[in-house]
Structures are given as structure tokens and as C-alpha cells.
């Protein structure tokens, strides 16, 4: 009988957990007019540790999850996260994938790209776009600082989940064998 391979599900559920936690943080930050966006962190483990198929499934599902709860054209996050995933995947054999420092650096860069891309897409609706950039800059700064603290925990959470399930993230083989 063919063994079920839940790697994409593990990563997707971890992303769902973080998405919910960040939503909670934003709920409590709302009176202070500060917002956190951590989209960049969702693709890192999927792109650097999983195989291409499972990584893409987890990334696409996470993109759909984000799009469903935000007022952007449905599919925007799928495209943006997919681009980050494809970029990392195409050059990952050259990257030092082990260790969390590289993951933190990449998540910072990915989040920066996603944040700026979304800002260019959405800032046009503002009555004073020039003024909106100041607020966007503060949100970006807060998000990058948040990622600095979240990334080590989040990457470790995904790695530990795979260990608990005794699955090698890249090959899908059982670790006990």
C-alpha cells in the first residue's frame, strides 16, 4: 500500500498557525495604527527544505489562504509567493540551507520584496499616496523586526514537526528506516 505523504500538509498547517497568530497580533495593534505582514516567511521552509512538488503545493495553498482573507485580487499572493518559491528553488543547491541564519536572511529579503510589491499594487487607492508611504514604511519596519524574532522559531517548528512525523523533508523517506 502506498504511504501517505503529509509534508505539504505539515507546512501548510504551520503557515495557517502563523497566519492566525499574526492576525491576532494585528488585532491588538490596530488601535496603535501599526500592522505586521509576514508573507515572506511562508515560502522559506517550503522552498529550501521540501522537494519541488510538495513545496509548491504548500506555497500555492498558503497563497490562497492569504488571498481569501485580504482585499486583493484572488490569486495575487499565489503569484507573489510562487515567484519567491521558484526563485529560491532554482538556486537552492548553491545556498547553505542548513542552519537558521540563512533562513532568517532569506525571509527578510522575501518579505521585503512581497511588501513592496503589494504596496505598489495597493497604494494607488489612497487619496494621498505620498503620505501613505510613510505609514507603509513604519509597517514594513515593524514587520521586518517581527520576522527577525519569528523566523528562528517558525523554521524550527516546521523542522521539528517533520522530525516528530519521522519524515525527511526533501525525500519524504521515513527517518527510522
Amino acid at each position, binding site marked *: 500500500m502506498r504511504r501517505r505523504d503529509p509534508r505539504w500538509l505539515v507546512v501548510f498547517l504551520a503557515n495557517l498557525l502563523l497566519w492566525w497568530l499574526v492576525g491576532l497580533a494585528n488585532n491588538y495593534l490596530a488601535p496603535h495604527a501599526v500592522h505586521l505582514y509576514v508573507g515572506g516567511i511562508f515560502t522559506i521552509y517550503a522552498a529550501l527544505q521540501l522537494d519541488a512538488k510538495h513545496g509548491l503545493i504548500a506555497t500555492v495553498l498558503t497563497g490562497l489562504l492569504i488571498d481569501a*482573507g485580504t482585499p486583493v485580487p484572488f490569486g495575487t499572493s499565489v503569484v507573489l509567493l510562487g515567484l519567491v518559491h521558484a*526563485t529560491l528553488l532554482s538556486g537552492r543547491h548553491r545556498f547553505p540551507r542548513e542552519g537558521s541564519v540563512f533562513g532568517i536572511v532569506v525571509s527578510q529579503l522575501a518579505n521585503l520584496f512581497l511588501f513592496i510589491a503589494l504596496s505598489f499594487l495597493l497604494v494607488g487607492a489612497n487619496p494621498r499616496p505620498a503620505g501613505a508611504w510613510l505609514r507603509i514604511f513604519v*509597517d514594513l519596519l515593524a514587520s521586518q523586526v517581527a520576522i527577525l524574532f519569528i523566523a528562528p522559531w517558525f523554521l524550527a517548528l516546521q523542522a521539528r514537526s517533520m522530525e516528530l512525523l519521522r519524515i525527511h523533508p526533501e525525500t519524504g523517506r521515513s527517518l527510522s528506516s
Partner: protein
Amino acid sequence: MLPKRFDQARPFLTLGVVLLVWLLLPLVLKTFARATFFEIQAPLIVADSFVEDLDTFWANRLHSKDELLKAGKQVSGLIAEYAFSTQRNKELEAEIIRLENLLNLPSMPAFRYEAARVAQRDFSGWWSRMTIRKGSNYGIPVGAPVVFSGGVVGRVVEVHRYTAVVDLITSPTFRLAASISGDNHPISYQGGLNDAFQPPRGTVEYVPVDFTATRTATRHLVTSGLGGVFPAGLSIGEITSLEISPDGLFKSGEVSLDERIGELTEVTVLVPLNPEDQ
């Protein structure tokens, strides 16, 4: 064996194929996918507000009997005050109907008031939204006005089974026909001036040039009733500045909004009784 250059481009090709499939997917499937992915996270969105309710419940249970008696006295005073206001409202409504019939005026839009708890707030530089804990299960329609004791909160933009999403008055995508209190010239209001660590603000356009407003002498902005969604006279905010617009025909300026919008825990949705009148 495929050349190495193709191997590196393969992730992009795969993504291209996925995106092509996505583009060719029928709209009905995309709508279904969006609703499904929202409903997946809906229990998580509302969970926190239910925990908060439970927290408040147990905190209230800890109050002493003396404190409850004192609060009861205050509430009974308020009830008497509101009972008088309700009576006065009924008289005024009867007077309005009498005048409408006398002058052959179209009747004012009627609403059912649906109180709803706020499940989650999401205020960014890109959008300002909140999710409330009532949806199609309470007959909430898309486009329904949402208000609180301080005036307009926003407009329902998405309705799900047990939740609804409200686009707030502070959002850049929120536009509304307004007027200065005591005047009937229509003015355009738009949200979106949300500086970090500052109270929310909005903008007004097409203000007649004879109006002035400063930080010390503000003008009260209310809904005009035009556009058919919001009833007239609901408070929006205070106009704090007005300047001549580039065309010289009108003035434009800034509106200071109620700071409590960022901390709301309960709002009221105005559900139209006769949607075809809207």
C-alpha cells in the same frame, strides 16, 4: 538528461504552468475556492473574541453584590432615560410619516438593527477592515451600513456563513456622500489617512468655497443620505482643515475621525427592511 540551464528554469516553468491553469480556471471555481479558504480560517478568526467574551464573563462574576447593586441602580436610571427617548422617537416618527403623507414625499429607508461582536480588526497602510461575528445566518447583506454610538463605522463588503467583513470608514477604498451638519450641499468623503501611532483621518472634496474649518473651529461632517446606503445625519467626524482645490471651484480638506474605531468590540449593522428601496 536535461541540460543544467533547463533544470534551473524548471521551477519557473512549473509556476508558469500553475498560473496558466489558474487563469483558465472558471470564475465560479475561484469564487468557491475563496469562500472555502475563508471558511477554513473563520473558526480561528472568531475563536479569540469568544475567549475574550468568556474572560469578561468570569471577570464580571468576580464582582461583589454591592458593586452589582450599584451598577443595577445606574442601569435602571439609564433604562428610564432611554424609555423616554424611545417614546419621543415614536412621536417624531409618527410626525415624519404624517408630513410625508401631507407633502407626498417618498418614505425614509427603514432598517432593522443587528448588533454584532467584532471578531478581528485589520488596519494597515493598504486597507482597514474588521470581521464581525454575524453573517448570512443573521440575514446581513453586502453593502449594509455599520454604525456605533460615535457614528459611521463602515460598510459590509463580504458576507460569509457566520461572519461578515466590514470595510471601515478609515479605509482608502471607502467613499461616501456626506454633508456639513446643518447644510445640504453634497460633499465627497474618502478614508485613508492612517499615520502610524496617530488617530485616523479622512479627506473631503467638493466642499463649497464659502465654508471654512480650522483645528480650533471644526465643522461637523455627517452622512448626506444620498447614494441610498447610509441614512442621513450619521456622524462621520470633524473637518479640521479646508483649502482651495487646484481647480479653484471647491475646497478639499482633512477630517478627524473618532479614535474609538480602532478599539470597537461591538457594532450595529443596519439591515434594510426593503432592499429594493435602497
